[in-house]
């Protein structure tokens, strides 16, 4: 039986074997091509790009020296990050070298503390704690907001750094963040990572970020 010629190409093992080879090869080649293109698009921008107002999908570390917003873009149909005027970060403007070092420390700390196994970053990770993709833009941290009042700080970055170092002390939910022995410098690095991450063009994820939270907290209803 096995040695007989198949009557039809559809039951021919060698036909399917060859087809599998070609289809897999084609998929791999296309993936390689797209990977090269994507890498050129998601390589971190430069400080000069920021100064020239050139939009990069992943801006340079010195983006921490600028205001960041998240606005609806009607031509794209979703929100996208908007890099605004320069602003101080932890009371200073960071040089390219300093900003790179700080972001690097933040990324190393994020991995070393295993943040991703409670939180999601860019939506990936665990689902035990809030998504951090746009945490920098969260209304919880704004001027006069809960976190600044509680931590007795005057800026968003200081409030975040204080919380990261003393998460149990500043806990507001039963499900608390544990004390991860984050140092003051590591906390600054993490905040830099969060700020830079919020400036990444995520194609509109998360959609309508924190839009209705204010209404919700005030018990607003459309009924009348």
């Amino acid at each position: 039986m096995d040695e007989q010629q198949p009557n039809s190409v559809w039951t021919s093992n060698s036909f399917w074997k060859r087809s599998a080879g070609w289809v897999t090869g084609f998929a791999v080649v296309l993936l390689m091509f797209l990977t090269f293109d994507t890498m050129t698009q998601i390589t971190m921008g430069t400080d000069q790009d920021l100064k020239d107002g050139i939009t990069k999908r992943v801006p340079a570390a010195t983006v921490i020296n600028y205001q960041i917003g998240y606005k609806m873009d009607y031509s794209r149909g979703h929100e996208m990050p908007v890099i605004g005027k320069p602003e101080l970060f932890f009371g200073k403007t960071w040089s390219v070298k300093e900003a790179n070092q700080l972001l690097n420390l933040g990324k190393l700390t994020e991995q070393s503390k295993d943040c991703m196994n409670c939180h999601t970053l860019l939506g990936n990770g665990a689902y035990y704690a809030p998504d951090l993709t746009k945490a920098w833009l969260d209304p919880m941290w704004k001027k006069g907001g809960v976190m600044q009042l509680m931590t007795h700080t005057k800026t968003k970055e200081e409030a975040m750094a204080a919380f990261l170092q003393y998460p149990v002390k500043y806990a507001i939910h039963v499900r608390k963040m544990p004390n991860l022995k984050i140092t003051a410098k590591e906390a600054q690095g993490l905040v830099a990572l969060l700020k830079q991450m919020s400036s990444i063009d995520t194609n509109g994820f998360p959609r309508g970020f924190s839009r209705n939270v204010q209404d919700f907290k005030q018990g607003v209803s459309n009924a009348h």
Partner: protein
Amino acid sequence: MHTNLSVGFKSGSRKLAAKYFTVAIILFGAQLIMGLIAAIQFIDPGFLFGIFDFNISRTIHLNALIVWMLYAMIGSVYYMLPDETGIETVGLKLGTLAFWILTAAVTVVVLVFAFIQIGPGSQMSIWFINEGREYIEAPRWADIGIVVVVLIFYSNVLLTYLKSKQRTGIMAVLVADLFALVGLYLAGMFYTDNISVDQYWWWWVIHLWVEATWEVFVGALAAYALIQIIGANRKIVEMWLWIEVLTLFGSGILGLGHHYFWIGTPEYWWEIGALFSSLEPVPLIAMFVHVLYDWGKKQGYLNGQNAGQAIKSTIKNTPAMSWIVVNAFGNFLGAGIWGFFHTLPQVNIYTHGTQFTAAHGHLAFYGAYATILVGMMYIAIQKYYGLERLVSTTKTKLGIALTTFGVLGMTIALTIAGYEQVLVERAELGGGWQAYFTAQALPWFTQAMDWRLIMGVVTCIGFVYLVIDLMTIGKNANAQAKIKQANI
């Protein structure tokens, strides 16, 4: 013509396989215990707080899962090599040494995760404590160790294949697939401060493992198992296998795009990811149909031959066959249907990063991988005791029914939790801190978490039956067979 060498358990390859299977089952148990701890922490956040936090229980839950499956996969290959190549496996001494090195390394990694847990923000932590990237948290030294050990395993497989005069389609697929599987691990072994680039390559490991190379591996295992259990025709089985390779790689490789919707990567991944990942269920339907079709055809043929006589089952190993049928269902349902639920970008923008993903993960890992690997263990037990037939016991049935029911229950609970998150946290409140905790506190969510824990306990009870059955079924069947022989 392909001949099956009846080497039984005289083969050193099979003895090595038994070692791998044993550690796999122990790690499977560890995975379930960690899952229970994590599930309790969702309900009572104070549970082990500050001692064994959620990120640690979840890290070990995931890593024990990945590692036990790799162990069972390596075990399965060492088990089937003598049948598929007709010769004894090459390099068994080195292979056995590699097993002990791997097991020692895994033990150290687990102990470090459990007791040292996390480190300061430095390269040292990433090299020696925790890499902090979901699924591949193993520190860099262990990464390198894993690559060395797996290369030893791979060279044994390749050299055995090349030495043998017998060239089966199953072996051709395995040799190519394992090469890709091993190579892909390297994509996860570097550090970058660019989180988009980080996640781009991280998905190369995770996705191209579980949605491409692991699936093809399962296709090859199912093909082998069907030949062994019901005596399916090799030529037909291998034809299906090539069709599966075509459709799995054809959809799965570019289906990678569905992880590139929101991580900073360009918008064209929406179209690429949506199109190809939508095709991913196609091969899973094919695998499902193929298993049932082959089974039905063989049984029908036997029934025809035995007309007028006592009709016997065509299945030589009912526990293994049951697990493989659950695999065919579970792979299609967990990977295919639950994956498709949230694979389109228009849906995924709301479901991404919710319990929806966890629901899919639970049913897919169980349905697509755990089931068939357990099936392989039952095949090994039958051969170990040289039994002509292995028949399900009550424990077999309880094991399979309770674990399957438990995982399905967890999946449904997590799906409901995810649905609530999608609607309340994402659509209604737009994500963010307040939105997240508001949705987590609503009864729809907390009740789902209660059910997840209950179903997790059911899964664990099923696992206990499974382990007892794996340890006793062969011995008992062997004793009965001897009594029968003595009576004749």
